[in-house]
Every structure is written in structure tokens, then in C-alpha cells.
């Protein structure tokens, strides 16, 4: 089993990178040493006892030498709002690293991200780059605000961007972009990774299946603990022809797309 710890981490910075999205950088001496891309941390966002449950966030960067990690988060509800108000210098309680990371395999990986899904996939892209493998990165977002940010601070590898409102590069969703890109390209991917809204991941998986590629998807579920004791985060998983509930937090969050019952 992977080692997990509770660590009190100092906030190095917590900045709004484009409207409603924040990048949080933390000094996490121990967790940074243990973490791999695709794993996540559970953060106690506010100090209030009104909101008792921690919230899960995937690693966006892991700098083992500098003892740093970062996450990118969208303000969605009460706790991400509270998190956005925490100031640098303050301490946050983290539990991590949690879950299993992405299996790193293949020579020509395709990474398909939507929304905040770009955070963990950027982390994976860095890991590939360190292995001298250049990933192909497809990213779908709502508009030019997000697109602009990542165009300026791109992940490793070749980046292609689609915006839903057409305000930046390709107009449409990321799977449409993929379909329009491929005929003109000579690249032969040998593995696919995806993270983002469930429907987008499903479409990506279906595309991968058609092309006979293994596709790893990072799933999201509301979590009670993050380390496998509450059974709050289950997902029906297909294995050897049988369905049974797996924990996204412990058995995932990364699953082989084959095992997921997409039309649940």
C-alpha cells in the first residue's frame, strides 16, 4: 500500500490565474517526496467546523527537490470559495498522497483534458517529459480566458486547444478537435489518458476504443475520507465480466476505461 500522511503545509501562493480558477502552491516536504502524477490530496479548506469534510484535489505539479506541490482549482461551492480566501503564509492541513497515480506507459501518449482536468494531466506530461517522451496534449475549455493562460504556460508536449465559445483556436469540444486534427496528422498514439467532465472522458474513451488504444481515465466522486475507510466514493467497476463497487479514492482515481460502466 502507498504511504499516506497528514501534513501541515504552508501556503506559498494562492492566486487567481483566470476568473474563478486558482493556483495554490504549497510547501509539502513529505507529501511532495511520495507523490506521483494522478494522485491527490485531501485539503481542510476552511477552519470552520460548519464544513467538516475535506476536499480532494489532484496534483498539478510535484517538485520533489524544492519540497513543493501545486494544485489548480475551480471555485465551485463553499469550500473551494473558502480555500480561495486563504492567504500565503497560512498553514493548510493536507492528507496525501492518496489513490493510485497514472500508469506511465507508451512512447506516444495522448493526453485529453477538460476544465480543471488539465491540472493532473500537466503533471503527467511533466513526468513523460522527464522520461524524454513528448506527450500530445489536447485541452478543452469554455473560453479564451482559460485557453490564454495555458497557451502562455503550456504543459510539456504539443498543446492543442479547443474553446466551447470559439474565442480561442478551435471552436468546439475537445473530442471534435481530436477528430478534426487526426486525419491531417501523421502521429500514431499508443496510449490515451483523460481527465475532465465525465461525458468528455466517455467520448475520449470511445474514440480510444475505436482506435484500439488503452485509455486511462481519472474519475471524480464526492468523497468522505479519501483513503478507503468510508466507502463513500464507490463506482461500479467491471472486472472479469462481473460488476462490483470500487472506491475511487483507493482503487482509483485512475481506472482503465475498459472497466468503467460509462452509461451507468
Amino acid at each position: 500500500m502507498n504511504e499516506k500522511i497528514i501534513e501541515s503545509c504552508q501556503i506559498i501562493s494562492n492566486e487567481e490565474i483566470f476568473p474563478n480558477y486558482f493556483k495554490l502552491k504549497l510547501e509539502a516536504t513529505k507529501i511532495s517526496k511520495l507523490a506521483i502524477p494522478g494522485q491527490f490530496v485531501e485539503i481542510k479548506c476552511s477552519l470552520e467546523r460548519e464544513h467538516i469534510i475535506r476536499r480532494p484535489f489532484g496534483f498539478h505539479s510535484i517538485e520533489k527537490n524544492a519540497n513543493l506541490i501545486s494544485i489548480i482549482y475551480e471555485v465551485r461551492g463553499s469550500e473551494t470559495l473558502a480555500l480561495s480566501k486563504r492567504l500565503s503564509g497560512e498553514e493548510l492541513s493536507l492528507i496525501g498522497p492518496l489513490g493510485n497515480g497514472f500508469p506511465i506507459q507508451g512512447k506516444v501518449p495522448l493526453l485529453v483534458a477538460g476544465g480543471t482536468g488539465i491540472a493532473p494531466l500537466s503533471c503527467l506530461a511533466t513526468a513523460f517529459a522527464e522520461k524524454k517522451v513528448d506527450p500530445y496534449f489536447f485541452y478543452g475549455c469554455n473560453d479564451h480566458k482559460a485557453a490564454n493562460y495555458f497557451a502562455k504556460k503550456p504543459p510539456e508536449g504539443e498543446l492543442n486547444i479547443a474553446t466551447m465559445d470559439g474565442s480561442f483556436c478551435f471552436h468546439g469540444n475537445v473530442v471534435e478537435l481530436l477528430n478534426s486534427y487526426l486525419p491531417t496528422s501523421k502521429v500514431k498514439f499508443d496510449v490515451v489518458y483523460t481527465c475532465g467532465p465525465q461525458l468528455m472522458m466517455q467520448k475520449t474513451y470511445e474514440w480510444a476504443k475505436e482506435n484500439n488504444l488503452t485509455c486511462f481515465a481519472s474519475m471524480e466522486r464526492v468523497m468522505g475520507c479519501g483513503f478507503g475507510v468510508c466507502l463513500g466514493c464507490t463506482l461500479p467497476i467491471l472486472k472479469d465480466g462481473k460488476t462490483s463497487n470500487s472506491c475511487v479514492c483507493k482503487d482509483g482515481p485512475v481506472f482503465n476505461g475498459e472497466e468503467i460502466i460509462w452509461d451507468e
Partner: protein
Amino acid sequence: MNKPKMNVNIASMELINPIIGASGTFGNGLEMEDFLDLNKIGGFCSKGITWLPQEGNAGRRIAETPAGLLNSIGLQNMGIVEFIKNIVPQFRNKTDCKLIVNVSGKNVEQFENMAKMLELPEVAALELNLSCPNLHKDGIVMAADPITTSQVIIAVKKVSTKPIIVKLSPNVTDIKIIAKAAENAGADAISLINTVLGMAIDIKTAKPVLGNITGGLSGPAIKPIGVRMVWQVAETVKIPIIGLGGIETLDDCLEYLMAGATALQVGAANLYQPDICEKLAQELEDYCSLKGIQDYKFLIGKANPNFRGEIFYGQD
């Protein structure tokens, strides 16, 4: 001063201290070893074990409410056979942290059969979870009916040599009646409270948040209900009470002890502070040292002049 005495004897089960991880929030114990030293806490209750394996409820299972947590896991578990095969043996060499098996039957026979199968040296005690709907009584849980409660206990006591802890549901009109029935039927201890039935609605989708519609409320929000019920039961029965519901801090522990609890369980707090049980055990000891209390058991029922429990202080 000497170190305060923190051990306690519940029926024939000897705990090194009164802090116990609550069922469903402590996995099967071993998962928590990343965060704490199991040998520093009295024991823990396994996830609720049923006769057959159960997949639990579909859809979303967890929701946050003000100072609380709703869950509708639906007793997902591997079933008694698998549990005995794979989990129980792992506790062969753990002697300090007691394994209390939380068993949940659909009827008297299932409880009886599981109790028989759990006559194993690794098992320190059974905690009977009577919160399954009573099939004969229109969906009301077994724990809401004093007669069913008695029947289960009598059947289990016949076949089991283990201390039998009965876990009571707070969703009843009069907890005293149920507690009294449990005591009369031969229960060795009572643990309370289980979760309070609640629900939440997602106003954006106009649907219940939980897949199962209703769920069990736990966490700080329910502490006043738990303390009240421990107080009431402490005035009613003589067998030891294990108090729980919203315990998060040393002060919460003291509140439950003073209300009449002999030992304590920590539930939801394990999910967001997984080292909490070890911390509370230490803090309670430190509190006793600081206040010159030689045995934490002097705190039991301290606020309750009608406390009826019999406390066994042990030999010096």
C-alpha cells in the same frame, strides 16, 4: 503524580483506554495505520458485516450538511465469510487494540449464525447493529422495537461467549425503553448513538442529493442528541454505555463521559482527521494528569446525579 489509569473493562473486554474507532469510519482498522498507532487506542469497530456480501447503495453516498455529514453507504461489505477469512486473521498479533465486529443481520437467525462464526480468538466483542429495517414491521428498524431487540440479544447470547454490545438507533420515541430491553435481554454493554435519519435536496437539480434519498446524519451537529441519549440511558441501565455522536475534541469526550458513558467511539471525525483517535486518547490522559484525576473513570457520570452504572475500577 502517577500516570492516570486509562484502562477500562467492558464486560470481559479489557481496553487500554476508552477511545474506540466507530463502525464504518475506521475501515477494517489496518487502513488507519498510516495515520495512527492502533496500539495506542482501546479498539475499533469493523465496518458493518452482513451474512452475504452487499454492494451497498447506488449513486451519491456522501453529503455535507451544517456541522454534519449525511451518508447512505447501505452497508457495503464483503460478507461474514470473506471477513473471517481475510480480515480477522490480521488481528492475530494485535493485542492492545481490540477488534470489535459490528454485525448487521436481517433477522434473528442471521445474527445468531454470524455470532457463532465469530467465536474466534481475534474477536474481542460483537457490536450488534440493529439498524436494518425490520421485515415484519413496515420498514421500522429493528432497533426501534424493544421486542425484536431482545430476541436478537437472547439468541446471540446463547451462542456467543463474547461481550455483546448493542448499538442503538436515535430514531426512536423513547430510547430508555429500548435500552432497558437490551439490558434485560442480557446485553453486556450499549453503544449509542447510530446516525440520525436525515436527507438533503440539491436545489439545482430538484433531486435528493443522495442516491438512496435518505441517509444517516453524523458529526458535531448531532452531539447534543447523543449526549442527551447517553444521559437518559445512564439513568436507566447499569451496564456500561459507549457514547458517540459528533465526538471531535477532548471537550466532547468529557461531555460524554460526564453524561454517563464508560467508553467513547469516534465516527465521522476519523474521515477528516484520521489521527484523531490516538490524539484524543493522549489528550484525555493529559487532562487527567493535569487535573490530578487518578483514574479517568472518576469522570464517568460525574454530571449526572441519577447515574446508575456500576463502574469497575479494577485492582491497584
